[in-house]
């Protein structure tokens, strides 16, 4: 009996060590029936891209509260493309000012969830936009 499961990597790039949100979201994805690989804090974009390829995930969710998202998020997308992972969807969350949303979208970040976004809405977004490759 074939049973496709959506695999998601939740990662925190950069120096920001506040991962409660990322862990709550991971748990929430688990409860939605997804397989979640959590890679922890202080990851370089290179480490995240490499791990996402090795784990064959469908989605990478990046969390950043430090303001470095303008560099870190697009860099992950770029590295995934370089390594043959251009079919992996990348989304972001954290403290992201409205004026950066367009720039992130242009860089290939498919959705950005900022404080106030409900967990249900994020799960809903994943169900609607991510399927097993």
């Amino acid at each position, binding site marked *: 009996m*074939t049973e496709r*499961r959506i695999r998601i990597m939740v990662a925190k790039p950069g120096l920001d060590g506040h991962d409660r949100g990322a862990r709550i979201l991971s*748990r929430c994805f*688990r*409860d939605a029936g997804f*397989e979640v690989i959590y890679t922890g804090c202080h990851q370089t974009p290179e480490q995240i891209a490499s791990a996402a390829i090795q*784990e*064959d995930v469908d989605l990478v969710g990046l969390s950043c509260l430090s303001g470095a998202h303008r560099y870190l998020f697009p860099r992950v997308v770029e590295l995934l493309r370089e390594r*043959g*992972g251009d079919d992996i969807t990348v989304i972001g969350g954290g403290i992201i000012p409205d004026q950066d949303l367009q720039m992130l979208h242009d860089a290939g970040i498919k959705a950005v969830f900022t404080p106030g976004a409900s967990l249900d809405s994020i799960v809903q977004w994943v169900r609607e936009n991510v399927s097993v490759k």
Partner: protein
Amino acid sequence: MKEADKIRKGDVRTATRLIRNIEDSIPEAKTAIKHLFPFTGRAHVVGLTGAPGAGKSTLIDSLISRYRKMNKTIGALLVDPTSPFTGGAILGDRIRLQRHAEDPQVFVRSLATRGALGGLSKAAGDAIHVMDAMGKDLVFVETVGTGQQEVEVMNHVHTVVVVMIPGMGDDIQAIKAGILEVADIFVINKADREGAGRLYQELMHMLDMAGTFAGGWRPPIISVDTMFKPELFHEGVEELSTKIDEHYENLVSKNLLGSRLRRKVMAELNEALQSSILTPILRKIIDSGEMESLIEKLIKKETDPYTCAEEIAKKYLR
């Protein structure tokens, strides 16, 4: 076979995609395994098992560093539990291995149990084959945090390392059947904690009672201090890696690899029979609605499970 060739050349994307397809029971994945099978059997496969929080991932992380210094290539398979309620899983052991993420000679893959009992996932055996065929010198397999009898790992590896921590039970534990019996090497991790000496004594006593050991290999007991004492910790890990190597050499020199291999292929055949015979029958009786009506009859006591099974066998196995 292109897919198998790519994997043998070490292509991570193809390898990890195949592991995914095995997990998802995609029929085509079996074809790839058929092609890879002749090229497996070269890697030394080492399983680490033990209670949740015993420090299995941390030990694997340090072992990887140690073996990378010796220029060995590494595969690591990390198993974590699937939720029985939602089917979801948090695969969190990778956190401790992330410093190797950029090393192209280290391939780490997490697996969810997806309901399998025994401490592994049904896909584990084939995932080991994939890493082996990639040319990895060593493949580490970390079981789900186990209790007393998740011994499935012994069917898939050459060397079983049982990781223990002090303070988990009385002296009857050491003579029970189960996980302690399958150990080739014992590690007492966090050995600077209270109770480590007693645990060591109990394990020694248990081994003394065992009397004979296949190939003369009496499982060594290695004490490893916590990571808060880096030097002592590294000393312990070094000793562990030496024993892992010695164990494999012993298997080879005493002609014991054959009997381990027998155990391994029997388990694999058993799993293949399950997926080739039992699973299709189950699918048929579920899809046709037969399962539902059998369940109703069983609840009303109109039949019993053995009669059901005999009737199904008669119908589908001719």
